[in-house]
């Protein structure tokens, strides 16, 4: 290697050192420690006791709350993510038309995503109260509203409702991508006599698939890690009907000081997220369309 090349490599490692050190100290080291901790019984005060795979076998065979939390997390992700995407697409499509005051509408739709989650949770605590505005509206139509956060049947729909309130975040990205679709495609379709609905399905959607895919992946990862809303609104109740994986993990670690058990849960969470991400990437080949792709 020439002297200049060697100097350049040295500078690379110098410049990249913040990330490299951070990776070793805050990620790789803790990951290895986490595997070890997950194989022990540890309260973080007394020395850890090696128990092998016991935490994992207990999780999988002897912990109904874990299975409930796993199911609830699936349920939440499986409904909130697609629902958010569909609503986001629908709104983006509306905003992509020749609309007067488009900026105003765009801002109003985006506004909820700017509210920090803690504040969102506080707000929905009032909105979803038995005598809150949502039930007031339902009463107008003669529907007696439930106690959203206190009934096992309604607590998951309530959390999904809260997530849909922020669908405007996806809208902005989708709208930006829609503007990038060449107008010529629509003009050609118009000449061929394609209806608007046909144009939406045959042009808009395929052109947006990369950004839809991005939203899907990020949405799934986010949904599997839902925490603040659950923790603030329900603490997982009633009867664990809204318990999800991260609040469960948090309680095991920081309320009951079961560091080993909590670490095992974190690895289960990792496996679940990894599984779904890989599944999404697998199917992506069939439906995600990249213009620059030459296969």
């Amino acid at each position: 290697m020439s002297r200049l090349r060697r100097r350049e490599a040295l500078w690379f490692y110098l410049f990249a050192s913040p990330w490299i050190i951070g990776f070793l100290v805050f990620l790789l080291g803790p990951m290895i420690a986490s595997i070890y901790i997950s194989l022990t019984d540890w309260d973080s005060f007394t020395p850890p006791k090696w128990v092998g795979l016991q935490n994992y076998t207990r999780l999988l065979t002897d912990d109904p709350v874990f299975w409930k939390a796993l199911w609830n997390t699936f349920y939440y992700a499986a409904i909130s993510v697609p629902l958010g995407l569909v609503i986001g697409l629908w709104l983006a499509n509306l905003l992509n038309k020749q609309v007067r005051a488009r900026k105003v509408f765009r801002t109003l739709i985006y506004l909820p995503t700017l509210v920090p989650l803690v504040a969102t949770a506080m707000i929905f605590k009032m909105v979803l109260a038995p005598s809150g505005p949502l039930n007031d509206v339902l009463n107008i139509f003669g529907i007696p509203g439930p106690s959203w956060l206190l009934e096992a049947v309604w607590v998951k729909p309530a959390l999904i409702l809260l997530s849909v309130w922020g669908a405007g975040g996806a809208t902005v990205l989708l709208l930006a991508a829609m503007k990038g679709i060449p107008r010529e495609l629509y003009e050609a379709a118009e000449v061929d006599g394609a209806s608007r609905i046909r144009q939406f399905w045959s042009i808009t959607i395929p052109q947006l698939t990369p950004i839809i895919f991005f939203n899907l992946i990020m949405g799934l990862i986010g949904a599997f890690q839902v925490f603040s809303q659950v923790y603030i609104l329900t603490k997982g109740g009633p009867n664990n009907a809204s318990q999800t994986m991260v609040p469960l993990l948090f309680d095991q670690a920081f309320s009951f000081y079961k560091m080993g058990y909590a670490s095992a849960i974190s690895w289960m969470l990792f496996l679940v997220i990894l599984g779904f991400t890989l599944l999404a990437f697998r199917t992506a080949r069939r439906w995600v369309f990249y213009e620059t792709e030459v296969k």
Partner: protein
Amino acid sequence: MATVISAAAPGQQERTRSRERVVGVFRATPFSYATLILVSAVLCVPLVFVVSIALSSDQTVNANTFTILPREFHWENFTRVFGTELPMQRFLLNSMIISAGAVLGQVLSSGLVGYAFARLRAPGKNALFIVVIATMMIPSQITMIPQFILFKDLGWVNTYLPLIVPNFFSNAFNVFLVRQFVSRLPSEIDEAAMVDGLGFFGIYRRIMLPMLAPVLIAIGIFTLTATWGDFMGPLIYLNDESKMPLALGVQYITSTSQALQAPPWNLVMVGSILLTLPMILVYYLGQRYLYEMDISGGSAGVK
């Protein structure tokens, strides 16, 4: 994919207007307007309700007789909140200290690291970059417990340090953003600077840093939004009320109010408004940079 809204929007609008008759797909019908108005109204109802509660009297809070549209206007709640037993000024100040530290750390480190990955050649760089991308898939919960132990052993629990210091080591997402941004800049710029005798650090500081402004501002905005609203981090690391940021403090007030006594919802909602307003302001001032960064083009690259 060209999605630079600020640049594309004006021209595109003129084009659409003149061709409106030809391409009907872009024309908004009265039905579209009705839907948009309805959706916007529904989405904004919770926010109006927040303002209404924030302006309510204590009697209304105790009787739990809130209305969506404000009927009372107790503006003094906004000043009252700073004079009660709730250390609201302290919460605000704590939020500012933590967020400022985190933003500074991310901006300083991400620029350097991202530039190195985009431009400097070194053996092992590509393998290292694959590691950068791979780390984005790992949920933070995996490292949460060992990190807590680490900070506990360092004696950093109940200080701001665990919430600030890790930011000085950048993160994968920001490194990726900067790298994508630098890759689109012509490399002749740094080559010319090198011919002029600038070293690598000189090139970074004098040539690159000014050009990185949009992406670094965007990173600053992302970091600010994430730390300002962060709930789990402070919940893990901070115990003293006097150290809590607003995001935790606001929730703390509702969970510590005594049994049978309703939380001071009007003051809680004033807190929620204080928590939200800076985010709206930051978005308003920063949206130009967010769109300039070409988010969708960059993120579509995460195949």
